C-alpha cells in the first residue's frame, strides 16, 4: 500500500473522488496541502481573489453540473470569508465540500495566529462538519463528506484540518474507501406506497389542480418525469424561483413562477386550486405570503426528501418523504393503473373549466401589466432580459445576483431546461452572480454564460474579474444600471413614501467600462433602446472575451406583480404602481 502524507492524501482523495475543479486560496494553515497539490495533483485549482468567491464559484459549478463543488481555504479569515458562500449553498441545498485549514492541534484553543473555531462558526449553516484529529482519518472522512454532501437533501459539508495532520514528513497507508456507511444517516430511498396511492387518488379526483414544483425537482434530476406527469394529466404547473427550468417555460401548461413576484395567473391558480401537488418545494415565506390565508380550498400533497420541510410552515394533507425521482415514478405507475380501471379520471369537464379560468387570468394580466413601455425613452429592465433571451436563443446559463434584476431575469428569461437558472434563492446573497458564472463557465466552456446583475451586487465581488482573466472565462455580464439599490428603492417607494434611505450612490459609481478594461476585458455602454439588441449581439459574438454590458435602465421601474404584504393571501397582488387585485 502506498504511503502518503496528510496533505498528499487530501490531494489524492480529491482525485479519487473525481473532482474536476478545486476553488481556493492558499494561506499558512494549508501550505502543506497546497504543496502536495502542486507536486502531485491532477485536479486544476482556481485561485480566486476572495474566499467568498471560491464558495460561490464552486456553488455555481455544482448547480450547473449536479456534481459537488469543492473549496479549499485557509484558517481564520480564509474560513470566515467562506461563510457567506456556505450559508448560500446551505439555504439552496447545494452539494459542496469545504476543506478549511486549522492551526496545528497543539495550538487549538490558544487564540493562535489565524485561529478561528470553523466547526463552531459554520455549525448552523452546514449539513454536517468534521474536524480531523488524526491524519490517518483523512481519506475516510473525505469520503464521508462527499457522501453526505451529495445524498438525501444535498448541502455543504465542512472538513476542518489542523496543519499538523498534513505535515509532509509523516506518511500513512493510503486507502480510499469505495463506499461509506453511517449508522446515523440514511436518507429515504423510496416513498411510502400507501401515501403515494392516496396522493394518486386525490390528484385524479381534482377539479382545480396545480403542480407546484421547486428546486428539489432539479436537484433530484426529475424534470423529465415531472414534465411527463403534468402533460399526461394536462395539469397546470408553476415553479418556484429555485425550480425554474424544471418545467419548460415556453410550454402552454406553464403558468410561470409563483410567489412574491410570481405571475398573476400562477398565484391566482394556486389560491383557487382544490389540490396542490408540491414537489421538492418548501412553502417558503416568499411563496406563501400569509400562511394562515394560504390557498384556503386546497388539499396539499407534499413530496420532499427532507421530512423537516414537510408541514414546517403549511400543513400537508398527504406527506410523502422520499427522493422526488422514485416517488414520481411510483406515482406515475399508480396513476396508470387507476386510469385503466377508471378512464374517466381526471374529470375532463372540470379540468376544461379550470383551464378556461386560467386562460382568462393569463389574458387579463399575465406578466405584462405595469410595464411602462413607451412611457419613456429609457430602456426598461424587462427589455434587457428579453434581448438577452433573444440573442442567446433561450439556451444560455444565466446566473444572477440579488434584487430587481434577479426578479426580472426570473420572470422574463423563459428557461426550458433545468440547471440553466442559477441564483441565490434562499439566502439572497448579493455578490453571488459573477463568481457563480465563473464556476459555470469552467464546467461548460462551450456554452453561453450570462451574469445578470446590478451595480450594487456586482461591486460585492467585482475583484473576480481578475480571476476571469487568469482562467479565461469569457462570460457576459449584463449590468442593469439604475443608479439605485433597486429593490431597496422599490420598497422605499412602496412603504416609506419614497425616502431613499442610503440606497443611492450619488456620483460615486465607477466607470465600469474603464474598470473592466483595466482587467483586460471588454466594456460596452448602452444608454439607448435602439442600441440594445445590437450591443447584446455584439457582446455574445465575442466568444473569447468577457464582455461587461453596462446598460442604463429606467430607474423608476418596479418589479410587478408583487404580493400585498403583510396579511395578504396568494391572490393579493400589486399589478402595477396603482393597480391591485
Amino acid at each position: 500500500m502506498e504511503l502518503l502524507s496528510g496533505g498528499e492524501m487530501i490531494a489524492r482523495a480529491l482525485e479519487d473522488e473525481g473532482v474536476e475543479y478545486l476553488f481556493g486560496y492558499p494561506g499558512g494553515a494549508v501550505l502543506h496541502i497546497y504543496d502536495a497539490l502542486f507536486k502531485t495533483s491532477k485536479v486544476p485549482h482556481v485561485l480566486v481573489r476572495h474566499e467568498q468567491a471560491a464558495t460561490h464559484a464552486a456553488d455555481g459549478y455544482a448547480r450547473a453540473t449536479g456534481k459537488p463543488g469543492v473549496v479549499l481555504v485557509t484558517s481564520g479569515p480564509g474560513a470566515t470569508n467562506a461563510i457567506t458562500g456556505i450559508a448560500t449553498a446551505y439555504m439552496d441545498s447545494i452539494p459542496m465540500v469545504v476543506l478549511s485549514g486549522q492551526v496545528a492541534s497543539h495550538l487549538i484553543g490558544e487564540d493562535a495566529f489565524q485561529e478561528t473555531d470553523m466547526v463552531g462558526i459554520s455549525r448552523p449553516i452546514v449539513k454536517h462538519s468534521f474536524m480531523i484529529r488524526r491524519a490517518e482519518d483523512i481519506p475516510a472522512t473525505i469520503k464521508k463528506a462527499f457522501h453526505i454532501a451529495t445524498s438525501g437533501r444535498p448541502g455543504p459539508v465542512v472538513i476542518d484540518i489542523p496543519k499538523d495532520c498534513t505535515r509532509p514528513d509523516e506518511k500513512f497507508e493510503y486507502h480510499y474507501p469505495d463506499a461509506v456507511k453511517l449508522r446515523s444517516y440514511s436518507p429515504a430511498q423510496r416513498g411510502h406506497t400507501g401515501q403515494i396511492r392516496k396522493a394518486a387518488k386525490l390528484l385524479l379526483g381534482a377539479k382545480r389542480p396545480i403542480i407546484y414544483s421547486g428546486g428539489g425537482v432539479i436537484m433530484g434530476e426529475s424534470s423529465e418525469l415531472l414534465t411527463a406527469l403534468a402533460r399526461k394529466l394536462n395539469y397546470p404547473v408553476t415553479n418556484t424561483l429555485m425550480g425554474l427550468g424544471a418545467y419548460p417555460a415556453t410550454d402552454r401548461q406553464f403558468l410561470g413562477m409563483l410567489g412574491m413576484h410570481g405571475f398573476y395567473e400562477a398565484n391566482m391558480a394556486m389560491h383557487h386550486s382544490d389540490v396542490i401537488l408540491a414537489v421538492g418545494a418548501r412553502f417558503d415565506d416568499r411563496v406563501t405570503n400569509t400562511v394562515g390565508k394560504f390557498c384556503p380550498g386546497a388539499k396539499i400533497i407534499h413530496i420532499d426528501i427532507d421530512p423537516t420541510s414537510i408541514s414546517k410552515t403549511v400543513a400537508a394533507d398527504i406527506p410523502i418523504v422520499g427522493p422526488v425521482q422514485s416517488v414520481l415514478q411510483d406515482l406515475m405507475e399508480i396513476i396508470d393503473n387507476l386510469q385503466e380501471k377508471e378512464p374517466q379520471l381526471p374529470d375532463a369537464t372540470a379540468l376544461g373549466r379550470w383551464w378556461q379560468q386560467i386562460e382568462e387570468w393569463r389574458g387579463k394580466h399575465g406578466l405584462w401589466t405595469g410595464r411602462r413601455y413607451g412611457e419613456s425613452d429609457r430602456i426598461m429592465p424587462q427589455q434587457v432580459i428579453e434581448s438577452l433571451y433573444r440573442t442567446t436563443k433561450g439556451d444560455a446559463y444565466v446566473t444572477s445576483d440579488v434584487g430587481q434584476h434577479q426578479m426580472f431575469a426570473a420572470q422574463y428569461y423563459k428557461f426550458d431546461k433545468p440547471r440553466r437558472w442559477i441564483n441565490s434563492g434562499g439566502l439572497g446573497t448579493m455578490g453571488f452572480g459573477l463568481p457563480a458564472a465563473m464556476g459555470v463557465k469552467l464546467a461548460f466552456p462551450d456554452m453561453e454564460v450570462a451574469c445578470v446583475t446590478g451595480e450594487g451586487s456586482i461591486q460585492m465581488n467585482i475583484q473576480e474579474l481578475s480571476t476571469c482573466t487568469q482562467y479565461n472565462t469569457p462570460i457576459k455580464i449584463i449590468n442593469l444600471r439604475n443608479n439605485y439599490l433597486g429593490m431597496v428603492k422599490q420598497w422605499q417607494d412602496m412603504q416609506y413614501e419614497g425616502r431613499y434611505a442610503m440606497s443611492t450612490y450619488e456620483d460615486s459609481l465607477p466607470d465600469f467600462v474603464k474598470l473592466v478594461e483595466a482587467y483586460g476585458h471588454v466594456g460596452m455602454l448602452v444608454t439607448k433602446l435602439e442600441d440594445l439588441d445590437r450591443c447584446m449581439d455584439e457582446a455574445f459574438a465575442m466568444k473569447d472575451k468577457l464582455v461587461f454590458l453596462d446598460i442604463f435602465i429606467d430607474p423608476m421601474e418596479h418589479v410587478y406583480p408583487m404580493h400585498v404584504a403583510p396579511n395578504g393571501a396568494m391572490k393579493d397582488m400589486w399589478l402595477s404602481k396603482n393597480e391591485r387585485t
Partner: protein
Amino acid sequence: MRRIISILLENEPGALSRVIGLFSQRGYNIETLNVAPTEDETLSRLTLTTTGDDKTMEQITKQLNKLVDVVKLVDLTEGAHIERDMMLIKVRASGQMRDEIKRTTDIFRGQIVDVGPNTYTIQLTGTGEKLDSFVAAMAEADILEVVRSGVAGIARGEKVLRL
C-alpha cells in the same frame, strides 16, 4: 405541552453543540438537559425536556433526527415512562431548624449526605415535580445552594432505546 426527548448521540466532539445549537437556532426551548456516556462507549445518552405544541414538537423531533450525529431518538412522553431528576440542596441547619429539616427530608425520602456544624446537604431523587415540592417545603429554611441533574428518563416495560 411538556415533553421528554431521549437521544442516543454519537460520542463525538461537537455532537452536543449541534443538538444545543439546533434549539437556539430554531427558537425552541430546553428546560432541562442531561447527558452522559452509555455502556457503549461510542454513544452518549441525552435526555432533554422541552415544551411546545404538537406542530413544534413534530419539527423538533424531525430536526433532531436530521442531525447526522443523532443515532436514535424517542419522545418518552408518548408512552409510559419513568423520569428522574436528582437534586443536591445545601441548607443552613442550626438550632431547631436542624430537626425540622431532617423530618421534612425523611418525609420526602431524601438523604442527608453531608453534615456540617451549621449546614446540611440533602440528596433527593424523583420527578421534577417532587423536587419542586421539596424546595417549596423548605421555604422556612435558608437555602444556600441548589443543584439539579436535569431529567433522565427511560420507557417502561419492553420498550428500549438502543441500536
